[in-house]
C-alpha cells in the first residue's frame, strides 16, 4: 500500500530533479522553475565544464620472476586507478549540467564492472567514456558497445569464450542483469547465447577488442525461439526485440532514479514508449509522472551521489587536496560502502537501507569534515545559511538543535548538516 499521495511544491520538485537527474543543486539553482529545469538538465549542453580525463598508460606486462618490475607495475596501476577515480568524482562535481554524468554513473552500476578484476584503469576509462557518449541515447547502441567492451570482456571472461569451449559468464549476465531479466529465458538460451558471443578477444597492448574469426562459432544457434548464425550484434538485437527487455531496463532506471516501489502498469507503458526513443526521453517522461511529484517518493542517496552533491554545493574539487587528504576521502567512501570503479559484483550496488549502517554514519562524518575543511565558508553564518548552501529548506527540531551546538564553527556546522537525515535522504 502506498501512502496517500501528497504533491510536492515546485521548489521541492526542482530540488528532486537536481538530485535524481544530477547530483543535487548548486546554490541558487532552486530558484529556477520546473519546466525550465527539466529543459536545462536534459538539454543539449549537458557535459560542458568537466575536466578532460587523465592520460593513463597500459600496465606493462612484467615477467613473473621480475619482482621489482611487478611491484612497479602494481604501483602504477594503483596510481592510475586513483587518478581515474578522483577525476570522475571531480567531473561529476564540476560539470555545469550533470545529467550525462549521472547517467554514466547509473550505467556503471547497471553494467557493473570492477577494476578489482579488470586490473586496467585504461580499460575502465574507455568503458566510462562509452557510458558518457552513449548513456543518454537509445539503449541498443549502448548494449552493443557493452557486449564487446574490453573491460567487460575481461570482467566476465568473454576473452575465454571460443568455439568448442564456450564460457557462459557474459551471455548469462547480459540476459539476467543487463537486458532482459530473470525468468524470460532458459538455460538452453544461455548456452546458445554464449556461442553467439564466441571469438571476442582483448588486446591488452592496444586496449582494443577484436573478433578472432578462428575462435568464433559459426554454426546455427537457437536463441529465444529463433534460429540463425547469431553474432554479438544480432544477438543484442534479438534480445532487445523482446517486449520484456524495455520493461526491464526502464524498471532499473526507475529503481535508481525514482523509487524502490515499482512503477504501475500505466507508468511503465509510458516509460517504455519513451525508451523507444532514447534514455533522455525516459528521464523526461519520468519527470512528468505523478509519482515523481509525490512526497512519498524518497530515495537514500548512494554514498558517491551524496559526496558529489556536497562537493557541488560547497564548490570543492578533490584536485585541490593533497594526496593524504584524498587517501582519507577514499577510505571514507570505502567505509560508506561505495567506490567508483569498484562495484561489489556484476549485480551492482545495494540500495535503500543498506547504505544506512552504523559504521557508514561514522565514515560519512569523516568525509563531510574533509570536504567542509576545504570549502570557502565565509558566507556561512548560522543554521539558515547552511540550509541555503545545501539546498535544505527546513531542518527538523532535532537537527536544528544539533546544528546550534556547533554554530560557532562553520566547518563543523556544514559537516553536521551534511550528515543530517534531511540531507542523507533525497526527499
Amino acid at each position, binding site marked *: 500500500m502506498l501512502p496517500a499521495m501528497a504533491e510536492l511544491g515546485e521548489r521541492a520538485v526542482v530540488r528532486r530533479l537536481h538530485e535524481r537527474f544530477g547530483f543535487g543543486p548548486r546554490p541558487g539553482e532552486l530558484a529556477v522553475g520546473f519546466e525550465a529545469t527539466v529543459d536545462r538538465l536534459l538539454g543539449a549542453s549537458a557535459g560542458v565544464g568537466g575536466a578532460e580525463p587523465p592520460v593513463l598508460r597500459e600496465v606493462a606486462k612484467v615477467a613473473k620472476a621480475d619482482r621489482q618490475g611487478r611491484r612497479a607495475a*602494481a604501483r602504477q*596501476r594503483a596510481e592510475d586507478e*586513483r587518478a581515474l577515480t578522483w577525476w570522475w568524482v571531480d567531473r561529476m562535481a564540476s560539470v555545469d549540467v550533470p545529467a550525462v554524468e549521472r547517467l554514466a554513473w547509473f550505467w556503471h552500476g547497471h553494467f557493473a564492472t570492477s577494476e578489482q*578484476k579488470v*586490473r586496467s584503469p585504461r580499460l575502465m576509462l574507455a568503458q566510462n567514456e562509452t557510458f558518457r557518449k552513449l548513456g543518454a541515447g537509445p539503449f541498443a547502441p549502448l548494449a552493443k558497445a557493452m557486449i564487446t567492451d574490453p573491460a567487460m570482456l575481461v*570482467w*566476465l*571472461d568473454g576473452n*575465454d569464450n571460443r568455439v568448442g569451449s564456450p*564460457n*557462459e*559468464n557474459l551471455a548469462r549476465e547480459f540476459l*539476467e542483469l543487463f537486458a532482459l531479466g*530473470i*525468468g524470460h529465458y532458459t538455460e538452453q538460451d*544461455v548456452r546458445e547465447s554464449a556461442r553467439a558471443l564466441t571469438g571476442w578477444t582483448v588486446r591488452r597492448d592496444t586496449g582494443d577488442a577484436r573478433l578472432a574469426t578462428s575462435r568464433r562459432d559459426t554454426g546455427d544457434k537457437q536463441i529465444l525461439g529463433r534460429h540463425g548464425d547469431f553474432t554479438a550484434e544480432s544477438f543484442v538485437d534479438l534480445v532487445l526485440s523482446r517486449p520484456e527487455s524495455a520493461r*526491464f531496463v526502464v*524498471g532499473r532506471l526507475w529503481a535508481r532514479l525514482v523509487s*524502490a516501489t*515499482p512503477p*504501475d502498469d500505466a507508468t511503465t507503458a509510458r516509460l517504455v514508449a519513451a525508451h523507444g526513443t532514447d534514455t533522455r526521453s525516459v528521464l523526461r517522461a519520468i519527470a512528468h509522472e505523478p509519482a515523481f511529484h509525490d512526497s512519498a517518493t*524518497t*530515495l537514500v542517496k548512494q554514498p558517491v551521489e551524496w559526496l558529489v552533491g556536497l562537493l557541488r554545493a560547497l564548490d570543492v574539487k578533490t584536485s585541490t587536496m593533497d594526496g593524504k587528504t584524498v*587517501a582519507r576521502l577514499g*577510505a571514507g567512501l*570505502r*567505509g560508506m*560502502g561505495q567506490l567508483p570503479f569498484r562495484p*561489489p*559484483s556484476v*549485480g*551492482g550496488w*545495494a*540500495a*535503500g*537501507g*543498506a547504505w*544506512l*549502517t*552504523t*559504521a*557508514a*554514519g*561514522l565514515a560519512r562524518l569523516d568525509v563531510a569534515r574533509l570536504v567542509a575543511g576545504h570549502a570557502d565558508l565565509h558566507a556561512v553564518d548560522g543554521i539558515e545559511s547552511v540550509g541555503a548552501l545545501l539546498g535544505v529548506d527546513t531542518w527538523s*527540531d*532535532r537537527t536544528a*538543535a*544539533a546544528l546550534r*551546538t556547533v554554530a560557532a*564553527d562553520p566547518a*563543523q556546522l556544514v*559537516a*553536521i548538516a551534511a*550528515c*543530517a*537525515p*534531511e540531507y*542523507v*535522504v533525497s*526527499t
Partner: protein
Amino acid sequence: MKNLTRRRFLTFSGVTAAGALAIGATRVDWADLLSAAATDPLDPNAGVLVVVTLYGGNDGLNTVVPATDRAYQDARPDLAYRPEEVLDLGEGLGLNPGMKGLKGLWDSRGLAIVRGVGYPTPDHSHFRSMAIWQTASPKTSVPTGWLGRWLDATGADPLRALSVEPVLPPLLAGEQTAAASFPVGGLTLPTGKLGEAFAALGAPVPGEERWQARAARSIADLHDAVKVLGGATHDDPTEDDPDEERDKGASAGGASNLAGQLDLVATLVEAGVPTRAYSVSLGGFDTHADERATQQRLLGELDGALTTFVARLKKSDRGRQVVVLVYSEFGRRVKANASDGTDHGTAGPVFVLGDRVRPGFHGAQPSLTDLDDGDLKHTTDFRDLYATLLAGVLGTDPGRILPDHTGRVDGLLPT
C-alpha cells in the same frame, strides 16, 4: 501492486536477491541485541551455527589436495601442489600449505572435512549455483533461503539469525521473516561539541519520513554500539588494497575482513545474544587465472580467521556450542586452463569445525578419473549436510526446512 509482480521486480533489482531482500530485513540495533541478551539469553547448551560462505567458487582440489594422485598431477602440472608441499591429512590427502592453523586443529581433532559435496545436475553460474546452495533448492528457484525457512518454522523471530555483512545474504531470507543484520565497523566517535552535535542527530523525530528516520536511528545505534563495544570491533581495511594477487578472482561478490566479522560473532555469542545462526563471508575465489598465489593467500586469510575464532570460542561454555560450516558455491575444473587457473567446476570439500563435531573425513573422495564432462561427481549432497546441522546443531526437524530430502551425513554430529 500484485504480489507476484512485486516479487519479480525485487528479484530484478539486483543479483540481488540479496539487495532486494535487504529491503525487508530488520536492521537491529545494539540495544535490541543487548536487551535480548538480558531478557532472553542464549541457552548455554544451545547449539549455534556459524555459516562461512566463500564467494567465487573455491578450488577444492587445491584446498584438500590429493597430491599423491597421478591423475591430479597430470591434470594440472603447473598448478598442482607436490606431495611434500601439502600438510598431510592421511588417506593420500593434504591441506593447502596456507592452512597451517587448520592442520593444527585437524591434529588436535577439532576439524571435520566432508568430501565431494555438491548436488545433481550442477550449475556453473556463480549466482545460480550460490542461489542453489543458499536456497537448498537445486531444481526450482525458490524465494527463501534454507535458514530463512528455519526462521519461519521456528517462531519467526529475526533475532534468531544474524548477518554481520552489510547486505543480507539470500540464505537468511524467509517467507515471513528475514534475519537481522548488524554490520562490522570501526567505532571511534568524535568528541567535544562536534561529537555532541553528531549524537544529537540520532534523536527520533515523530512522523519523520521512513528513510530519514532510519538514517537517524543508524546514528543512534552507532552511539549505543560504541557504549558497549568500545574498540572491540575491527576497522575495515582503509587502504586501497595493495595486494594484487588477492583480487584476481573477485567478480562474484563476498566480503573481506573475515577476521573482523568472526570477532564480532564471538563477542555476540559470549554476550549471550539469543541468536542461533550467523552468516559471514569471504570473497575472491573466482580464480580463472594465476590461481596458486591468489588462492593460497585467501586460504591463509580463512585459516587465520577460523583458527583465532575457534581458539576464542573454546574459552566459554556458549562458545563451545558453536559449529562452523565453511562452503563455496562450487569447486573448479579438474584440469587447469591455459592461464594457470581453473574454470567453474562442481563438487568440493566442506569444513565443519567445533567441539560438537566428530572430527576426521566424512564422505568419499571423488574420483579423478571417473569424471562428468571434466568435472568431479559429487559423493555427498549438500542437503544431507544441512539436514544434519539443522537436527544436530539447531535442534529442528529438517523435514520442515528441506521437504522431500531424507539424506544425512551419518556420524558427523550426535543427534
